[in-house]
């Protein structure tokens, strides 16, 4: 009976300690100024993307030749769906096909964020699996890492361009074309954690009591990779949004009728000298969003992994 009470006490102590540790980590993350600033701006952009239909926008694909190349902030009469003419103010002007840039920029937030988040999640999922397995199973390690070295030697944007040229333009192909160059970077990170953790006494203990390899990987090694992966994930997200914009801007990314920040800028290229607003508004949104994600990542790195923060 007494033994059971003691067990209970021990479990309670362990649970509180774990809770305290977790709280310490969470409050450290929450207290970090960069995390707060970055998270607020990213959340705002997500909200803008989600609520785009409610923010006074019109159909971002609607072409209206009557109001081509309108400068920002100008009011023009526009034919309504009912057939009546009514004045409308174009906050960010229109493009060469008369599409409302304000609406396109707001809807464009959706694509950028979807690409950024999807690339981060998918490349981490794939990289984590490969990294865990190859870091733990020695004979596989050499082969996998040589292949990864080869992939890393190809500049990321160039590799993405090559893949898009093969797979054709589209949201899914663009996402995967950006994922592929990111995979070796995630694999290296995961593998370096695995190599240092596998020598820890608790992993040896787990092996000695006969825990199976998959269970060791999931229960003992995986949790150690999470903090660095979250940090890496934010940086992948930021660079993925930039690469998507670059691909669209070069005209080889997402099809041109879809409103993405890169596409809006691509259409503005030829009119840029007279109508710089076609490039500057989407450019500003893109830069602010990427900046916010980068600041968020810096903050997460400092609070989740103080050692790493000092090094760079």
């Amino acid at each position: 009976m007494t033994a059971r009470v003691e067990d209970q006490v021990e479990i309670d102590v362990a649970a509180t300690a774990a809770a305290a540790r977790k709280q310490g980590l969470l409050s450290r993350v929450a207290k970090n100024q960069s995390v707060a600033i970055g998270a607020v701006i990213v959340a705002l952009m997500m909200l803008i993307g989600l609520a785009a239909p409610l923010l006074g926008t019109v159909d971002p694909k609607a072409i209206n030749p009557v109001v081509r190349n309108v400068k920002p902030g100008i009011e023009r009469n526009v034919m309504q769906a009912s057939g009546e003419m009514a004045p409308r103010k174009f906050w960010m002007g229109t493009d060469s096909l008369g599409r409302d840039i304000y609406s396109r920029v707001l809807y464009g937030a959706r694509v950028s964020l979807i690409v950024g988040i999807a690339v981060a999640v998918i490349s981490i999922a794939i990289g984590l699996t490969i990294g865990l397995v190859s870091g733990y199973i020695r004979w596989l390690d050499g082969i996998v890492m040589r292949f990864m070295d080869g992939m890393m030697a190809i500049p990321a944007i160039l590799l993405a361009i090559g893949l898009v040229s093969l797979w054709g333009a589209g949201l899914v192909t663009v996402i995967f074309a950006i994922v592929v160059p990111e995979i070796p970077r995630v694999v290296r990170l995961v593998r370096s954690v695995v190599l240092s953790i596998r020598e820890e006494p608790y992993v040896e203990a787990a092996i000695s009591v006969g825990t199976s390899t998959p269970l060791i990987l999931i229960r003992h090694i995986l949790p150690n990779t999470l903090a660095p992966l979250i940090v890496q994930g934010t940086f992948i997200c930021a660079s993925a949004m930039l690469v998507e914009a670059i691909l669209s801007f070069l005209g080889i990314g997402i099809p041109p009728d879809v409103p993405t920040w890169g596409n809006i800028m691509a259409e503005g290229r030829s009119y840029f000298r007279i109508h710089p607003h076609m490039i500057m508004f989407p450019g500003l949104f893109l830069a602010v969003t990427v900046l916010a994600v980068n600041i968020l990542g810096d903050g997460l790195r400092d609070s989740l992994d103080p050692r790493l923060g000092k090094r760079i």
Partner: protein
Amino acid sequence: MLIFIARRLIATIPVLAMVAVFVFLMLRLTPGDPAAVIAGDSATSEQVEEIREKLGLNRPLISQFVIWSAKSLQGDFGESFFFKKTVAELIVQRIEPTLALSVCTIVLAVLIAIPLGVLAAHRSGGWIDRVVMGFSVLGFSVPVFVVGYLLIYVFAVQLNWLPVQGYRSFTDDLGEFLLRMILPSVTLAIIYVALIARITRASVIEVLGEDYIRTARAKGLTDRVVLMRHALRNAAVPIVTVIGIGIALLIGGAIVTESVYNIPGLGRLVVDAVLARDFPVIQAVILMFSFVYVLINLVIDIAYSFFDPRIRY
């Protein structure tokens, strides 16, 4: 020393081989018939057959790879579908502007970034440090082409100080060449400066904590001598490494910058090739840039052992 260089040279061979395998497999492992992918949607079956014949796609994979790599090693990358020239000819034609842009950018970036990084480290925590660090995060976040158009708008369209776009070879007219290089190299240098300044700052701060720096100060050396002769020199290895690794960023940025400034280099070539589905060109340019990237980093690695006798692998 020679053994080290030899060992380092041998170590790059598998990496280069893997690059070649990867670039080769990219086309072959694409779902669907690669010949049809290259030919495009509107091609007739005879055209598809012709491409299959030309690229040897009807042979077994291994023999395709052997033939392809043997030809590539001899500089024969096949013939461009779109430009109707050999790929090697095209690359030779387009290499000068890209090389010129890259060299200008690296020189500019190193000249700006290292003093900035050293200053930031020297006054770590001060306002210069904050500005430099803020700039470096900003440099990573603003897309290259937005910077490019902003600079064109301000300096070429509004102020009319510099030409808007275009390229002039330095063998034709050195003055014009330099004038047209200013905006593209500044544009491309920004992300590179951000990277180098950040690493310079970090590694100089680390070195400044060493005992020999305290000794140097105790001897009564001025700040400048301590920073330049003792701190920077010992912090050089990570800085030079990042200059090498940053070449990948530079190549990506060059593709975009060439499009913004209408410079007829390799970056423009690859974009045109993608739009024209000209796969031999894409393949060759990817292969070439990757080899250059690996070889530059090899040279940098070997150079360390000259600068820093402590390094031995």
